[in-house]
């Protein structure tokens, strides 16, 4: 939830990777909560497996797909890759908004 405060700030060169890292962590935390309540045990699996399973539990296939995309994009952004530039603010904002929507959906499922 601290993500929003990160979105607008573009002063430090580190911010995109930091925001990506925090965004991914928020998504993972939310998913862990979902598994604990709805399908205990899934949280033990690899993230790839968890994201494959997600459509069956989230109740919104498109959102599950967006979440999977956001997760892999954020993961790429958190690592330094040779020849690769950090994401733009706009891209980052879109992935983070997908993450937010997913978290919101998980909240409605688990509360």
């Amino acid at each position, binding site marked *: 939830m601290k993500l929003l405060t990160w979105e607008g700030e573009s002063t430090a060169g580190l911010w995109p990777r930091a925001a990506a890292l925090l965004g991914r962590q928020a998504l993972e935390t939310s998913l862990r909560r979902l598994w604990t309540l709805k*399908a*205990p*045990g*899934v949280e*033990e*699996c*690899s993230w*790839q*497996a968890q994201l*494959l*399973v997600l*459509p*069956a539990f989230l109740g919104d296939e498109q959102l599950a*797909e967006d979440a*999977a*995309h956001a997760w*892999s*994009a954020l993961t*790429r952004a958190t690592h330094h*890759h040779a*020849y*690769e*530039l950090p*994401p*733009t603010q706009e*891209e980052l904002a879109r992935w983070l908004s997908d993450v937010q929507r997913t978290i919101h959906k998980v909240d409605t499922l688990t509360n």
Partner: protein
Amino acid sequence: MDESLQLAVHKELAESGVLDEDWSVLVIAACEDAGMVEDVLGGSAAPAPPLEEAAELRPKGAYLGPLTVQGFRGIGDEVTVDLQPGPGLTLVVGRNGSGKSSFAEALEVLFTGDSKRWATRTKVWKEGWRNLHHARAAQVQAHVFIDGRPSPTVAKRQWADEAALEESTATVKAPSKSPAGLEALEWTEALTAYRPFLSYNELGSMLEGGPSQLYDALAPILGLEDISLAQKALAVARQSRENLRKQAKNDLLPLLEKLRETSEGTNDERARACLDALGEGQAWDLEVLESQLVGGPKDPGAGQQISILQQIATLVAPNPAQIKDASTSLRNAVANVEAVAGTETERASETASILEEVLAFHAAHGDGDCPVCGSADALGAGWRTRSEAQLGELRQAAQAADRAHEELRSAITVARDLIHAPPAALPWCDEVGLDGAPAAQAWGEWAKGKGLQNAPALAAHLEDTAPALCSAVEELKKRAADEAERLQDAWRPVALELTEWLGEAREAERARANVPLIASAEKWLKKAENKFRTERFGPIRDQVIELWKLLRQQSNVRLEDVTLTGSATRRAVDVAITIDGADGSALGVMSQGELHALALSLFLPRATLPQSPFRFLVIDDPVQSMDPSRVDGLARVLEKVARDRQVIVFTHDDRLPEAVRRLNIPATVLGVTRRENSVIEIRTSQDPVTRSLKDARSLAATQELPANVARRVVPGFCRAALEAAFIRMIRTRRLAKGIAHADVEDAINESTTLTTLAALALFDDKGRGGDVMTHFNNKYGGWAWDVFMRCKEGPHQGFGGNLHDLVNGTENLARKLLVT
């Protein structure tokens, strides 16, 4: 002009309220052809109004099926790329030199006879197209699935041994038709307008070619070329008319010079009048010109000078012979009268009068005394007889005297009638430069005789004044005739030329009257073209901007607007951008990768317009020069396009397939490898069926996954694999039968359960779900039905059995289904 465009023009004419303008018919005529414009201007024809509602022609859509290539470029022995007809994304992946681009080129050459990327290459390069490792003739062949054709159409291009690239023959074999030329596909125009082949090189060159080349590449999709033709027809009509006037003006120059010479040389007033009528900087007064050319007495004011000269030259002077006769008659008559004057004859006349009266008295009162002298009984029968005889004698004598007097009177009349007042033309001599004074003076002297009563004086006047008059008038007449002749000699050739020119000028003026009409029609048509262009380009523009948003990714360039502007040499595509919010003028500031993304944004919409017959799109190497990590945007774009188009992408590295896998985009990935001697192998490394199976298998193998979750999720992926297999079967079957592509997709989308999809795939009838079990049992055995049911119900109820077995069973079933 095609009917729908004609109708659009007509509607626009009506809506803009100009249908009543007299030039609107020219717009309609121009939409027909240039000949009709002339016919309408000439009044010999009127254009037919366009049909009420032109039927919109939906092209018959086409997908590509298997592509077979041999002996072409990097490909040696025959090899087939198993393209699946129908919408979806197919990636053909191979290292540089693996031959995958040869497939893209082969497709392009097959249908266009040429490849854009070769167009600028050298001859040596072009000659190297033939594969070195292949002895047999080069050949490219593709199956084309066309709406409404009961089975695929085969398009084939072949080269004889040693033949050059251009020397190929292409044939098209449609079902139940004999082979025909490539034109039987009716794609010639569409291949330019909606070009379904996009290669990296071509996209780059599109933007390098400048705004007008870009315009030429985009404008045909708007279908407005015919409006340009109509504009051209009007412009030609207008220019030809303006040229007539220019020609007449040029032709007039030497004539004006001649007129000036004539005017100065002979002082001919006709020349001056013509100069005034045709003077520079004013409209020609052709009426005045004509009156000068045909002028004469009937046109007062016109050619007065020559007319005066002619009148003077034909003056009637008194005839000397007549004058002599008249004076002789006068003198004779005078002599005769003098001869009878004071003689018996005069008295006799009076005596006869008295006798006549007395005889009348006697006849009334009878015999009696003389009433004059009173002598008794003087009047009696004897007296009467004597008197009557005496009266006869007296009368004869009196008549001679009367005749002499009568003759004198008539001689005077004749003489005086010879004398006229001076003719009206005589005083005009000054005006035409003749000295009329001697003649006028002589005539004045002569005219004085008119009042003379005295016959001898009259005769003397005639004899005295006539000779001077005659000689003066004759002299004057001769001089006038000479002057007239001189003027006419100078004028005649000029007049002749002017008459000829007059016809030309009249035609030019008539033609010129139409110029404002044509110009109005042109102006309106240009405005209409701009309007149509904006209207028709609007949806494409929106797509371009949308695509750019997806593709730009890293770029800070925002595409604000794309417009087609201008015409003829100033035609251009205007690409308005902002960079971090500041206005920029497009192409100059973009990087190579951005330009390429922009070109893709511009040309993908062109290739996917609804009016294009191509339901397929071939993109070669779109990833080149793209930012390594920014291929995601491209993958998303391709996913979007592939929803209702067959998108075939050839790419040389793994970035795009990787993005497609990572983003979970449904796609078929074909790997191309090249062995020695150009032997090409293609294997399917991924398609929607294998991808689902792969996901299912990886989940089934995930030890940590709780069993209750795995029981639900793994059958879901198995089910997705079967669905993908069924959909592929349905598409292949239905498209091959020529069923409209949209209908096929509708049928698939409407089949919401696995059973209806299966029925549609197996029996082409979604109502036969009940027969699926029997079919599976008979054809494959009981296991197939078990797998089917588990895939159907597992995702809902969970599947308690061995998940690995289920995945294997599903794979087995899917393979068997797709083989048949």
